[in-house]
């Protein structure tokens, strides 16, 4: 067995049993990155020397009998998390030279628990995108390809495309990611791996480059549901440095994976049966529900009547918050500065931001600026906040009757790198099944459940009650076990 083929759980066991050292495990991943990253572009920065140093320190700690829950486990960190002393770009030219002097709380929690960082994973610029094609550091390629058309390069999804591609291609055992409208779950589904966006407030946002603060949440991607549970346990927890961080105990998520689904009521929202959804995705959804019934759950049709308004609501709320958050990139205190010989301060701002931000980021800042501007705030922003309240109310009503909700994760499998690039709204529709959980602040998990006719992975999504990730993990594990998903991408380490 190649060391990069371990699950995260398997690697922890192998390290504990002395079958492998962290240095060996880390070196195997660095070799895999050297071989495949030039093609996949999943990492923006590889911190090989630092990773080996961390691995050696981890092996030494283990010898002394000290081992954290993630002792010696090599991970990828989405390049949206500030890492002290290591370049953190957010996939943007404007932060192309930014080295934070501080560490994000989530990555600090992982280091506290013994993790090794292989490098910084590529992403859509400022996490704005669903295909990882907006990165200033080039697109990421999905390690999967169509069975009958292996030459068409596919997107890994976004915005956490580098994280998902790295984990699927075995260039990391797991990775951090973030999700504002689907940025963990959509790329996980496109790459045939698992990923969870926890409840808003579960993970600290301190040190994560902000996109839309009322929606952003950090979470893990990994090759199994249990691996996600192990990672989330380390990432989560109260942090006084984030005013929206929830002071709520973090349960043993991995233990919850084995709970089973007997007696659970699973909601099936009728509004998620969209016209134009491929029949394979409808069929997989039905199959997933049948698997849960076979394991003792009851499936119940529910109604989430405001579902169809979720995406347009999101495209007011998220750009509005982004336009405020991204006002800090002014060319004065950090990042890129662009001036002409006669530039005044205003010209410095305008040139820096025009050249520093890519097209999609500029577009969202402009939309956000407009919907917040005098005379339009009530018609757009306030209206969107009210509809957001209605969307949340729909879920509150549904969770009075059911314990979890199961839906498709995405409306399609991974698409080609040059598809859907001409119309922003077409790209936005990727998040149609995932964005509601962000607006309502609820946990959502994507789990690989099958393949389409082209041999590409398809995922299902499990949405849970606020701070009830445990039920989400139980349902996700039940689907995962019934699906027995063993297919592998064409591009992967050891292949």
């Amino acid at each position, binding site marked *: 067995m190649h060391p990069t083929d371990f699950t995260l759980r398997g690697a922890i066991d192998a390290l504990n049993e002395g079958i492998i050292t962290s240095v060996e495990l880390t070196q195997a991943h660095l070799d895999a990155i050297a071989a495949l990253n030039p093609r996949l572009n999943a990492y923006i920065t590889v911190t090989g020397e630092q990773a080996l140093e961390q691995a050696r320190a981890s092996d030494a700690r283990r010898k002394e009998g000290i081992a954290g829950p993630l002792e010696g486990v090599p991970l990828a960190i989405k390049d949206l998390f500030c890492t002290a002393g290591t370049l953190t770009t957010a996939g943007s030219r404007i932060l192309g030279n*930014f080295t*934070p*002097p*501080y560490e994000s709380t989530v990555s600090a929690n992982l280091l506290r628990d013994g993790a090794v960082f292989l490098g910084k994973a590529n992403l859509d610029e400022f996490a704005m995108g669903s295909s990882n094609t907006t990165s200033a550091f080039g697109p990421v390629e999905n390690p999967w390809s169509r069975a009958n058309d292996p030459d068409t390069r596919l997107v890994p999804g976004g915005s956490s495309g580098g994280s998902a591609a790295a984990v699927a291609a075995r260039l990391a055992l797991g990775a951090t990611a973030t999700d504002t409208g689907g940025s963990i779950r959509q790329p996980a589904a496109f790459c045939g791996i698992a990923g969870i966006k926890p409840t*808003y*407030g579960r993970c600290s946002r301190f040190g994560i480059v902000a996109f839309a*603060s*009322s*929606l952003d*949440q950090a979470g893990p991607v990994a090759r199994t549901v249990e691996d996600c549970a192990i990672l989330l346990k380390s990432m989560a927890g109260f942090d*006084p440095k984030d*005013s*929206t961080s929830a*002071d*709520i105990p973090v349960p043993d998520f991995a233990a919850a994976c084995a709970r089973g689904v007997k007696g659970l009521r699973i909601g099936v929202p009728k509004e998620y049966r969209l016209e134009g959804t491929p029949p394979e995705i409808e069929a997989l959804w039905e199959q997933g529900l049948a698997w849960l019934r076979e394991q003792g759950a009851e499936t119940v049709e529910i109604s989430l009547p*405001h579902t169809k*308004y979720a995406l*347009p609501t999101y*495209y*007011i709320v998220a750009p509005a918050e982004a336009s405020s958050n991204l*006002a800090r990139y*002014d*060319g*004065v*205190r*950090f*990042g890129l*500065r662009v*001036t002409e010989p006669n530039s*005044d*301060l*205003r*010209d*410095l701002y*305008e040139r820096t*931001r*025009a050249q520093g931000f890519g097209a999609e980021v500029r*577009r969202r*800042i*402009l*939309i956000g*600026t*407009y919907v917040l*501007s005098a005379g339009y705030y009530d*018609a*757009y922003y*306030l*209206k*969107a*906040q*009210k*509809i*957001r*309240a209605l969307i*949340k109310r729909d879920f509150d009503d549904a969770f009075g009757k059911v314990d979890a909700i199961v839906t498709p994760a995405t409306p399609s499998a991974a698409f080609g790198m040059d598809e859907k690039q001409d*119309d*922003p*709204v077409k790209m936005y529709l990727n998040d149609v099944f995932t964005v509601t959980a*962000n607006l309502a*602040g609820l946990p959502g998990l994507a789990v690989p459940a099958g393949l389409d006719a082209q041999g590409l992975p398809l995922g299902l999504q499990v949405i849970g009650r606020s701070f009830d990730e445990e039920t989400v993990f139980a349902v996700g594990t039940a689907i995962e076990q019934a699906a027995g998903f063993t297919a592998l991408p064409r591009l992967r380490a050891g292949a």
Partner: protein
Amino acid sequence: MSLDIATVRRIAALARIRLEEGELAQAQAELNGILGWIEQLQAVDTEGVEPMAGGGAVALRPRPDAVTDGGIADRILANAPDRQGEYFGVPKVVE
């Protein structure tokens, strides 16, 4: 609602993003495409609905009004594009 070129120019100025004259028409078309799609929200009855401002179910907590760090000017200035002593340098703003 459809944005005219003058409005696009005004929004770009508010956002402090330089748009060249040749870029205005494309920006106008893209923004109007997105706003046209968003327009469907006007059909939703939101009479008497309280707007949802934050993302969390948990109320924000107050913290003591106290200084918790300081004396880290070098770290704060470490990424400055134009550091001038203990200050960020910018083009002259006062005559």
